[in-house]
């Protein structure tokens, strides 16, 4: 480093290098494996890898130094070595062969045989997928044999089968949340306490990672205590889930003890160091019976550019592959996927989590296939849609509503679709290319091991407070949890505290092992401890805010209603325990803040709360909920009553007393074999778009758009609509505008900002003609379903399909910019 440039007023107080990290004995958590700071003499792992932390005592020094260093010449390089070649981050194969009838067992599926990978050690850059390859594990070879048979069928010259074989590429993009990553750290040498303030989607894991990093550091760099405060965030979109930022923040605090240190990316640094969406290269083959129009087989190969660190690359690869057949019922499937290391900026979690890429490729291919068969695109989708009990890529059915026919009907009847030919003709008369596109997708919510904490207290005046471990980043988790609790307690909470991971000590929970990989025997043994759960607190991600984030609080509210407010109501209504109505607590309804029952005087919440307090009834409940594609379910004794609920831990408070833990008397955790499931929870969304394109300039205008989705009970309808509108905008950006070069010249150079990187502005969108329709829940008590990701995905293929309809050009890579359109139309 050319530190000589930073003299006088620009001089940093502390410079922290890789040598310093080694000297004090830091450890890098396994998830973030790789040098946090590039050591002298080593080739960087990736473009833009941090080299040092420069800590300044005063803002003015920092401000002047950052401007002085922005030209990118501060770091001195040695001889060129070429990029580091690293092993891939994960390679997987998903193969499924259905039985002869829909009801028959599968011949082969991931849920039967487990998920399979080729051997990790290969001589080639890409995995050797052949079942006959050297070092091939037996379970892999078995699945691969079936997979190769499917490919052979697709390659055979079968005249009854339409086969399309297409390649599709997607680009690297940035989450571009408006607030760059930032945080505060303060290490007090006197108390040996490290205080952190930061905003992440993964509070518990962030705190754990910092503790691991400093856990074996030598004095005085090992804090006795780490106190993490998690703040609301200016957007996340997955990009604040497990980023290494908090590690640098903690180090900044430790190396400048006694003073608060702020680490805050500017936008250049955020582009340089922030997590990116994976660029994909995909080859897809589809085989469709020419007579019936039914898909017989599908095969695909995905290659993901994971960038410099593994991060979530293996997970993104598997989620993307498992979603590669979208809404369709396909009896023969074979999808390979590999996430590669590269010198690019690290890729990880981002809204859609790989499914945006694979389902965009699929829905464009479906459009082409239906055209080749002279079938209406919606009719082709209807003919091949997976039914409610149909099996997904991994061989399991969904366990929630699957409302594809309703969605397709809505799309088909909408004026944008109905009038498409007429509008195209009108456009032609006016010299414009007009096209209409459709796409329909399904996206899972949940990661397969999700949990939440929730604690509710109600005071004598009926004021409600909620503590929850999930985080707010613009997704209305706070409002959602308040609204869901209000369904049980009759009022919106007066106080909601989110991102709390240390507010549930009364449950005294412990955990061990990895919930994604543990075996049944291990889980059964661990579950004998009534305080054990498979996971304590998980990430606010994967569209789980409504479904998981509110679950524990909702169950806590039910406990307060049943064992606090309801017995208080019985007393006020003078209903004795022997009266049959005494057991009808679930039929009571809240109306205007009053608990109501037929023929009884409505009771205001405040009066019920006062009575519950005075009678020492339950006035507080703290719970934990865990889901592995199904909820944990446990039984407790509460006030002498057996209480079974979709939670695995419970503590209650009576009156003004302290919380007391209630040991569960039995528990059923979801079986560990559920880890073989791709997804059981899913939501659907279909989108129509109409585009108008100027032939001469390639300028594209989205004239109208319509998205229809189903997401169970909507806890905050206004924000569901907002998420759908925001997802539309992000989809437009991804399809038409956003792109980052992967390597040299890309964001790792620290020179990228919003002047070059274009996201959708208001003028890019049909603000007055963007219609969002939410299907009402199937039943009044249908649980909320996740929807924040699914609303973005169909926008992208619908746009590409509309562009094809308008221009006759089938684009197979993203983004389709105005310049590219102009070139194609020239």
């Amino acid at each position, binding site marked *: 480093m050319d530190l000589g440039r930073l003299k006088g007023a620009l001089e940093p107080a502390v410079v922290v290098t890789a040598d310093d990290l080694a000297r004090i004995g830091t450890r890098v958590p396994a998830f973030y494996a790789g040098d946090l700071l590039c050591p002298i003499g080593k080739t960087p792992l990736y473009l833009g890898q941090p080299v040092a932390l420069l800590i300044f005592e005063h803002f003015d020094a920092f401000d002047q130094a950052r401007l002085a260093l922005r030209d990118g010449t501060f770091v001195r390089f040695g001889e060129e070595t070429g990029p580091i070649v690293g092993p891939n981050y994960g390679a997987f194969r998903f193969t499924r062969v259905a039985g002869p009838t829909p009801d028959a067992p599968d011949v082969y599926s991931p849920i039967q045989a487990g998920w399979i990978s080729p051997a990790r050690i290969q001589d080639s850059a890409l995995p050797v997928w052949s079942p006959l390859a050297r070092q091939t594990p037996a379970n892999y070879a078995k699945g691969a044999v079936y997979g190769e048979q499917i490919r052979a069928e697709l390659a055979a010259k079968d005249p009854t089968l339409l086969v399309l074989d297409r390649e599709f590429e997607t680009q690297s993009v940035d989450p571009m949340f408006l607030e760059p990553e930032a945080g505060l750290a303060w290490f007090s040498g006197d108390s040996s306490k490290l205080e952190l303030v930061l905003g992440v989607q993964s509070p518990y894991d962030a705190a754990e990672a910092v503790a691991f990093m400093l856990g074996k550091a030598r004095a005085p760099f090992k804090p006795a205590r780490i106190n993490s405060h998690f703040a609301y965030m200016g957007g996340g979109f997955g990009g604040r889930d497990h980023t290494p930022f908090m590690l640098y923040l903690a180090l900044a605090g430790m190396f400048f003890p006694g003073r608060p240190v702020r680490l805050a990316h500017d936008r250049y640094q955020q582009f340089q160091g922030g997590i990116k969406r994976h660029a994909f290269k995909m080859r897809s083959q589809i085989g469709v019976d020419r007579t019936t129009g039914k898909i017989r087989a599908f095969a695909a190969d995905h290659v993901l550019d994971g960038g410099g660190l593994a991060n979530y690359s293996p997970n993104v690869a598997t989620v993307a592959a498992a979603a590669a057949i979208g809404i369709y019922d396909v009896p023969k499937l074979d999808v390979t996927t590999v996430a590669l290391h590269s010198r690019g900026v690290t890729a990880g979690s981002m809204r859609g989590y790989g499914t945006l890429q694979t389902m965009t490729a699929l829905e464009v291919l479906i459009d082409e296939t239906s055209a080749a068969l002279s079938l209406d695109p919606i009719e082709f989708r209807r003919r091949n849609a997976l039914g409610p009990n149909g099996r997904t890529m991994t061989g399991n059915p969904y366990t929630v509503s699957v409302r594809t026919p309703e969605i397709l009907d809505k799309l088909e009847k909408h004026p944008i679709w109905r009038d498409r030919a007429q509008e195209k003709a009108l456009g032609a008369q006016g010299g414009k290319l007009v096209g209409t596109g459709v796409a329909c997708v399904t996206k899972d919510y949940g990661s397969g091991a999700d949990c939440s904490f929730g604690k509710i207290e109600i005071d004598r005046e009926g004021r409600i407070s909620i503590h929850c471990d999930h985080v707010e980043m613009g*997704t209305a988790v706070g409002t959602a949890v308040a609204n869901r609790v209000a369904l049980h307690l009759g009022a919106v909470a007066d106080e909601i505290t989110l991102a709390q991971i240390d507010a549930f000590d009364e449950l005294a929970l412990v955990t061990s092992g990895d919930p994604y990989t543990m075996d049944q025997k291990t889980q059964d043994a661990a579950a004998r401890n009534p305080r054990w759960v498979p996971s304590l607190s998980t990430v606010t991600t994967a569209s789980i805010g409504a479904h998981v984030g509110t679950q524990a609080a909702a169950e806590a509210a039910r406990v307060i209603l049943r064992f606090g407010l309801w017995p208080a109501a019985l007393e006020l209504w003078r209903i004795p325990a022997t009266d049959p109505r005494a057991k009808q607590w679930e039929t009571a309804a809240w109306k205007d803040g009053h608990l109501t029952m037929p023929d009884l005087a409505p009771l205001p919440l405040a009066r019920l709360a006062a009575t519950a307090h005075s009678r020492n009834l339950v006035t507080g409940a703290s719970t934990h909920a865990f889901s592995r594609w199904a909820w944990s379910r446990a039984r407790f004794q509460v006030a002498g009553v057996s209480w079974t609920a979709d939670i695995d831990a419970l503590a209650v408070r009576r009156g003004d007393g302290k919380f007391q833990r209630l040991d569960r008397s039995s528990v059923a955790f979801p079986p560990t074999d559920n880890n073989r499931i791709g997804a059981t929870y899913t939501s659907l969304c279909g989108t129509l778009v109409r585009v108008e394109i100027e032939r001469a300039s390639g300028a594209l205008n989205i004239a109208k758009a319509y998205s229809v989705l189903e997401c169970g009970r909507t806890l905050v309808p206004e924000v569901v609509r907002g998420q759908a509108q925001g997802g539309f905008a992000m989809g437009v950006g991804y399809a038409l505008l956003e792109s980052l070069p992967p390597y040299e010249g890309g964001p790792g150079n620290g020179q990228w900002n919003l002047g070059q990187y274009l996201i959708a502005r208001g003028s890019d969108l049909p603000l007055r003609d963007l219609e969002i329709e939410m299907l009402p829940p199937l039943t009044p008590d249908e649980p909320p379903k996740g929807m924040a990701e699914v609303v973005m995905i169909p926008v992208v293929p619908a746009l590409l399909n509309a562009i094809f309809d308008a221009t006759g050009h089938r684009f197979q890579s993203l983004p389709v910019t105005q310049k590219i359109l102009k070139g194609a139309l020239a």
Partner: protein
Amino acid sequence: MTTLALTINGRAYGPTEVRDELSMNDFLREYLGLTGTKFGCGAAQCLSCAIIVDNPDGTSTTSPTCVVAAANFNGKAIRTDEGHARGNELSALQKAFIEHFAFQCGYCTAGFLNEGQVLLERLARKPVARVDLETTIAEALDGHLCRCTGYVKYHEAVRDVILADPKRYLV
């Protein structure tokens, strides 16, 4: 160093010495603690840092603060996010933002609020025809970047404030 004196939300600040290259954004946030003004890009592209500049002729405009030196505001009167509410009483536009759930993460909101307020004040001076209202709002707010909401609810909120008082804002 430059001597800086200005009026912020009706209150006089300075004179004080500031570095010539100190940005207005840093002056507001780092020196005055007025963190309602956000930093988004540092390149005047997202406008989450926009503030209101009140001109001597009674008109107002917005200005980014991230790329403009604090010294450029010497002698000027500006309004920031903190200047909209009167005590606990939110402005009509702030109330409309809340009623419409116009913002989600909220990081871009200060910029939209300032831009929307300038538009309201411009229309109060020079109303537009109802038929031109949508274009007027779209042109006023365009360029402010939001990644969460898709912009629709911001536009709806501004429109509702205008339509609630058509005699004031519309021809």
